[in-house]
């Protein structure tokens, strides 16, 4: 039995995003988190190969869904785009917020980085304003241990009012407990009472003016306090999604309209202009995050990142920065190109021996020469060339590139090169996607999503095509066919 989005209430996202439940008991889990906190590792470790990807309806942002089973129940996990906030400053944030608000997930996991928890708490707090069905997953605890950062997880859970689970997703540490916590939340075993975020008196008074009426109109469908705050904030895109979700236009209600007018006047009378409200809201969240963090996180070694800084000052120094970078990237290329020759040769020898066998077989069977030409010298030989030329360099290049990423060197490359890219109206991060493009243009172009500014992202997407992928810079004798192949493929 398949339940459509309509029957589960997710009408805002109905157009294409389909969450297929195999039975009504299946629970939908949203996975949110800042970029680079190991969110994908959590997602992959829990769902394994049970995933499928697509795009968010009408958006060029990847949507991944996966399934896992725990305690005899199916959980469908929806991987939201990595964001720092839910204030809808970008398409990614809008998607994440809309799904948490209107996608009716049975629980939301917010993955955060234990090595800079304070910053990550911003997203946690914003999520808690929308829903109380939240599990906070504090990831990368091994890294925090290495940096001698101590986190009082129990205290953190008490402050936030929701379960907090420490994990190290890469080594699967804590994932069982995470699944248990999600199970409990979706079962309503534990009614969570999340932290109440209170603002200035003036803002609070304005919220109070609206809240009762909003609750009367929206019922339990959505948090009335949060809705009131967002109405004051006047975020047009959100109000549009909200109206679609509710199925009626909230602002059609005359009483609410009048109340909103009075509340907004109350704000401006007390010195909070419309553009200052957002600042006040954000500042408040940052202050709360600061308070919670100072109560629960202790740095055993106050200069915990001194070593990192010393390394940084060499890697990005005026004298050594660029030479070290060229040497490292040069080494990767040299290893890829020369290293790939050996396996490439072996694969080629092997595959072309099979071609000889095939030719022998076709001749023996008396097949017409055009059949042999089409199947053997056409299809088989091209395939053999492509595999022998392209597979080995990819198998060497990508693991090495991943190693540089894990060492954290890649952001330094972007940092070193940003000024040059800026002169071309592009962004330093494009250097990384171009490097990826040497392995495979498709990967290089998908990687462009790491660039925040839409204009710079578009430039990167278009120009990364011109990076010669390893099929195109392969040895000329075999390379020629492959360049043609690549040109078609891209």
């Amino acid at each position: 039995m398949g339940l459509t989005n309509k029957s589960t209430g997710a009408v805002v996202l109905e157009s294409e995003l389909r969450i297929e439940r195999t039975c009504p008991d299946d629970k939908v889990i949203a996975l949110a988190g800042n970029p680079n906190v190991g969110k994908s590792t959590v997602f992959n470790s829990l769902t394994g190969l049970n995933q499928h990807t697509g795009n968010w309806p009408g958006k060029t942002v990847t949507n991944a869904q996966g399934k896992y089973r725990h305690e005899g129940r199916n959980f469908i996990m929806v991987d939201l785009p990595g964001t720092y906030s839910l204030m809808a400053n970008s398409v990614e944030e809008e998607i994440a917020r809309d799904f948490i608000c209107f996608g009716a997930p049975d629980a939301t996991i917010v993955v955060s980085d234990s090595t800079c928890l304070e910053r990550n708490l911003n997203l946690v707090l914003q999520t808690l304003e929308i829903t109380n069905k939240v599990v906070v997953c504090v990831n990368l605890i091994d890294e925090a241990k290495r940096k001698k950062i101590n986190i009082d997880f129990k205290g953190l859970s008490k402050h936030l009012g929701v379960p907090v689970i420490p994990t190290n997703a890469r080594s699967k540490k804590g994932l069982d407990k995470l699944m248990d916590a999600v199970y409990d939340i979706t079962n309503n075993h534990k009614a969570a009472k999340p932290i109440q975020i209170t603002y200035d008196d003036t803002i609070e008074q304005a919220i109070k003016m609206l809240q009762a009426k909003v609750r009367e109109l929206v019922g339990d469908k959505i948090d009335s306090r949060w809705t009131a705050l967002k109405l004051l904030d006047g975020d047009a895109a959100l109000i549009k999604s909200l109206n679609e979700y509710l199925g009626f236009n909230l602002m059609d209600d005359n009483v609410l309209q009048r109340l909103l007018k009075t509340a907004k006047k109350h704000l401006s009378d007390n010195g909070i202009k419309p553009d200052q409200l957002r600042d006040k809201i954000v500042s408040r969240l940052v202050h709360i995050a600061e308070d919670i963090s100072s109560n629960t996180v202790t740095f055993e070694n106050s200069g915990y990142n001194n070593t990192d800084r010393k390394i940084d000052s060499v890697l990005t120094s005026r004298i050594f920065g660029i030479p070290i970078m060229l040497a490292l990237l040069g080494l990767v290329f040299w290893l890829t190109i020369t290293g790939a020759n050996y396996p490439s040769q072996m694969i080629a020898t092997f595959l072309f021996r099979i071609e000889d066998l095939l030719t022998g077989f076709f001749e023996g069977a008396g097949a017409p020469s055009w059949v042999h030409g089409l199947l053997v010298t056409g299809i088989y030989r091209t395939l053999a060339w492509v595999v022998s030329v392209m597979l080995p360099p990819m198998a060497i290049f990508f693991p090495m590139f991943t190693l540089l990423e894990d060492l954290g060197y890649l952001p330094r490359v972007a940092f070193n090169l940003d000024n040059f890219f800026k002169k071309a109206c592009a962004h330093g991060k494009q250097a990384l996607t171009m490097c990826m493009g040497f392995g495979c243009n498709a990967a290089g172009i998908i990687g462009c999503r790491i660039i925040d500014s839409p204009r710079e992202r578009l430039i990167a997407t278009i120009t990364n095509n011109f990076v010669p992928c390893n099929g195109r810079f392969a040895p000329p004798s075999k390379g020629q066919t492959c360049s043609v192949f690549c040109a078609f493929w891209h």
Partner: protein
Amino acid sequence: MNNYIPLNFLPLGKKGKVRTLTSIGSIRRRMLDLGLISETVVEALQKSPSGDPTAYNIRGATIALRSEEASKVLVEVN
């Protein structure tokens, strides 16, 4: 604005306290998301080899800002 300087003039190794953001719109919101609100202490860590983006320590995270972005954050140096 007596002691306030734009963040991009903060010397390396020095700390400054955020006083005002002069940017507007999406850049302002991004700055706020980074935690650059009033009273936040920011330390200039490192300049890129060509001198432009500068890495800052903002609330425990190392973040690189271009000079035109940093110039719209006014800080007070003690």
